[in-house]
């Protein structure tokens, strides 16, 4: 036996299998703790999850398999589980025992796959998970009697509360010592007879030595994966034999495929007789009540829209102050580092390149965490499956099924897990279409772009006592914009490249439950750390690259001299500067405390007049300070002029000028154009790039509070501001539709096994983005002049 993990020579290998959503991964994590790692099986898109634990001096290696209702493989991906169990998966090796995890509250159907596993003859442990749910429903199970009948260990367990874990560990260790079992024989003698004959035929014609288990599966799974894969070497002869064998079985009263479900469920009924008692009248559960509302014709759809809106509104309410806090922190770190280093390339690299670039993106960490938190909550409480149920009919309108809905929904967090989640879609054409439109869903990497534009260029207006804000509405609209565009795209793809029937929709609706904090937090942590890692690697590298391209090859000596002078002047005027910032924040506070006067202006004119007087007083003081600070302003002015020229002369500037004609129709200046090009690796890079460009390229004064104000003060050479609502819209629409994400394209390549599809996605999305941005720019501009004139 060749063991890939050297430190685990003596470990036994145990596979974990069971229906979806029964707690396999929960039990896996509870048993192995930190000792796990996630990879991928070669050639397929199945996640390979390995872990190990030690108990009573024995070490065990666990393999977590994807959840499945049955071991009859319908695709290469589903074949992996069968191969692992049969010890045919080279990178896992032979299996010593199997742990079958079942949902005790739904044992009958869960035992179907167990009965298929038992046929393998491997030592097996049966875990009755979700014991608490079964008890709640008044279901009584006698594990001791069940163990006696099955001749294997049967262990009740509550994985999410980490109860009975030691019993499970002991059961696994003991099972590993046991010899092979003789499986319960459900099938008639003729079936085994046919299987043996077919096995010999495969030796003769295909020169393959196949385990009898695979041959039996081949016989049973009409049109399954095995039929396609195994008969390849000698299709004609072997297929005729297979068909003949199935026909003989049918005449002998053993018609495949129907016979398998009939026999297995019959066996389960008999097995559970006297072992399990289910209350006669199924008590009305919370799930029933909830479902009556949440899948209701009217209330269900309303609840769905409301849930989605609440998610975005709360992200905006909670995250905005947090973001401000981060921004101020970033500014302070930049100032602090700047004060430590002398003006020069190194300081510029760190302050303008790294802190302005990477910091600019880390500011969005609170939003990302919240977004993932909500998606994880919705998934874990069971609502996502309802969303699929609600949306199926709509999805069939474009030729997809509700099954595509969940991957598309999780693409709102990130297209990568979304695209990987399309593995649950059995129909290949549907899966392809879902993969190709998944990047149109608004992922979390777009949020920073929207956020920046919305916060900087849309007024803070609120209605309904501050519960509904324009910012949240804009975020909501932008978030669903891509999804709306995806509808005609999906329809087109289904009508042209992937013509096929609407696929079936057979789905279990799991019971609602309280989301488990451990699982939810774990997922949020996983995603958040991936985000930070990306900021620390990919975005850091791009930031440095952008910085170099915009710093070189110009001569920065004159600029440095001015910077030194600015520093001196700032020291000289420190008390005035201090005073000025205090006055400014007082002014802001005054304005913020004042509710926006809507119609009631007439009755409340007195407080407004008082406010105006206060404001005038503050403004006068500010003007007075500004005259004192005039020398400093002049220095900043010089610096901005020099920097502007330096940036325009840099490699990046030259390149930007060169591409400007292409982006000009979208209302962009060359900096935005460069930013968009640089954000090919990841969308959020645009924020970092703009941060670096504006930090280097001037347009900053002593009031600069991060990127937002830098954008507001950016101008065209003739002094017109670059950014306006139409430009902001054009940028947002571009990012909503573009394919600026190298990792997504890579995942598409991997999942479709072809570069062509990644390229296709990139081309179609970029075209869409360009046209969309052009329309958005012109339409918004027109709308604004129109409403301005009337």
């Amino acid at each position, binding site marked *: 036996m060749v063991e890939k993990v050297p430190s685990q020579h003596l470990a036994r290998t145990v596979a974990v299998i069971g229906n979806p959503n029964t707690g396999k991964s929960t039990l896996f994590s509870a048993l192995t703790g930190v000792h796990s790692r996630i990879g991928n099986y070669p050639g397929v898109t199945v996640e390979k999850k390995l872990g190990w634990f030690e108990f009573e001096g024995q070490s065990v290696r666990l393999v977590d398999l994807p959840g499945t209702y049955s071991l009859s493989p319908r695709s290469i991906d589903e074949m992996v589980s069968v191969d692992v169990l049969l010890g045919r998966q080279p990178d896992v090796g032979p299996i010593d025992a199997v742990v079958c995890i079942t949902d005790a509250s739904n044992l009958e159907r869960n035992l179907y796959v167990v009965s298929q596993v038992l046929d393998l003859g491997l030592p097996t442990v049966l875990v009755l998970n979700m014991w608490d749910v079964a008890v709640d429903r008044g279901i009584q199970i006698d594990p001791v009697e069940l163990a006696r009948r099955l001749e294997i260990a049967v262990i009740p367990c509550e994985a999410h509360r980490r109860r009975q874990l030691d019993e499970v560990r002991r059961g696994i260790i003991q099972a590993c010592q046991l010899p092979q079992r003789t499986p319960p024989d459900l099938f008639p003698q003729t079936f085994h007879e046919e299987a043996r004959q077919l096995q010999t035929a495969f030796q003769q014609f295909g020169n393959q030595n196949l385990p009898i288990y695979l041959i039996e599966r081949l016989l049973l799974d009409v049109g399954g994966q095995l039929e396609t894969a195994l008969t390849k070497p000698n299709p004609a002869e072997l297929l005729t034999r297979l068909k003949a064998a199935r026909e003989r079985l049918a005449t002998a009263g053993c018609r495949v495929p129907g016979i398998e479900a009939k026999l297995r469920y019959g066996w389960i009924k008999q097995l559970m007789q006297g072992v399990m008692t289910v209350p006669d009248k199924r008590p009305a559960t919370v799930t029933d009540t909830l*479902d009556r509302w949440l899948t209701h014709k009217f209330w269900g759809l309303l609840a769905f829209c409301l849930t989605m809106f609440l998610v975005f509104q709360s992200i905006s309410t909670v995250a905005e102050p947090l973001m401000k806090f981060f921004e101020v922190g970033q500014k302070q770190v930049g100032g602090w580092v700047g004060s430590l280093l002398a003006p020069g390339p190194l300081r510029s690299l760190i302050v303008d390149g790294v802190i302005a670039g990477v910091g600019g993106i880390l500011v969005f960490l609170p939003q990302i965490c919240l977004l993932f938190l909500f998606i994880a909550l919705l998934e874990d409480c069971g609502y996502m499956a309802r969303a699929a149920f609600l949306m199926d009919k709509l999805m069939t309108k474009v030729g997809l099924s509700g099954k595509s809905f969940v991957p598309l929904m999780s693409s709102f967090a990130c297209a990568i897990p979304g695209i990987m989640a399309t593995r649950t879609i059995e129909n290949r054409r549907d899966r392809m279409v879902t993969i190709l439109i998944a990047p149109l869903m608004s992922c979390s990497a777009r949020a920073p772009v929207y956020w920046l534009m919305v916060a900087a260029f849309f007024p803070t207006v609120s209605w309904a006592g501050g519960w509904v804000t324009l910012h949240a509405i804009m975020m909501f609209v932008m978030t669903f914009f891509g999804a709306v565009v995806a509808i005609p795209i999906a329809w087109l793809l289904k009508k042209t490249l992937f013509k096929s029937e609407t696929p079936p929709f057979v789905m279990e609706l799991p019971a609602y439950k309280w989301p488990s904090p451990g699982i939810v937090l774990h997922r949020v942590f996983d995603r958040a750390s991936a985000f930070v890692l990306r900021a620390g690697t990919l975005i850091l590298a791009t930031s440095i690259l952008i910085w170099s391209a915009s710093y070189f090859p110009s001569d920065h000596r004159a600029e440095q001299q001015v910077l030194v002078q600015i520093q001196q002047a700032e020291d000289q005027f420190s008390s005035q500067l201090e005073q000025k910032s205090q006055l400014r924040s007082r002014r802001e506070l005054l304005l913020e405390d004042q509710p926006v006067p809507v119609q009631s202006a007439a009755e409340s004119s007195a407080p407004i007049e008082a406010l105006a007087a206060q404001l005038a007083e503050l403004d006068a003081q500010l003007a007075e300070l500004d005259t004192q600070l005039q020398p400093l302003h002049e220095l900043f002015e010089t610096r901005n002029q020099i920097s502007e020229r330096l940036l325009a002369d840099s490699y990046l500037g030259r390149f930007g000028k060169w591409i400007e004609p292409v982006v000009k129709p979208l209302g962009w200046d060359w900096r935005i154009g460069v930013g968009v090009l640089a954000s090919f690796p990841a969308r959020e890079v645009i924020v970092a790039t703009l941060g670096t460009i504006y930090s280097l390229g001037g347009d900053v004064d002593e009031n600069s509070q991060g990127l937002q104000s830098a954008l507001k003060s950016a101008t065209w050479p003739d002094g017109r501001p670059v950014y306006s609502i139409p430009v902001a819209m054009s940028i947002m629409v571009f990012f909503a539709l573009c394919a600026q994400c190298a990792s997504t394209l890579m995942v598409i390549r991997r999942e479709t096994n072809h570069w062509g599809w990644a390229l296709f996605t990139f081309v179609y999305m970029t075209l869409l983005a360009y046209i969309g941005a052009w329309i958005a720019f012109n339409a918004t501009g027109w709308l604004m002049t129109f409403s301005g004139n009337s």
Partner: protein
Amino acid sequence: MTLDELQIGQIASIVEVSGQDGIAIRLMEMGLTDGEEIQLIGFAPLGDPIEFLVRSYRLSLRKAEAKRVTVLAR
């Protein structure tokens, strides 16, 4: 009659699942075997898919799939 013709709340027993393709196999694997009781719980807001209770769990099927299951209403 077939499964999609049941009324809300009506219970029937399954007679057979027609066809031998992947969909038929999947339906049988999910526990739709002859003699088994099945109850229609409700329709999705847009009329399709349909929610059923079978072997004490909730299964959602589209009309097209439900049509393939012959049942005997009680």
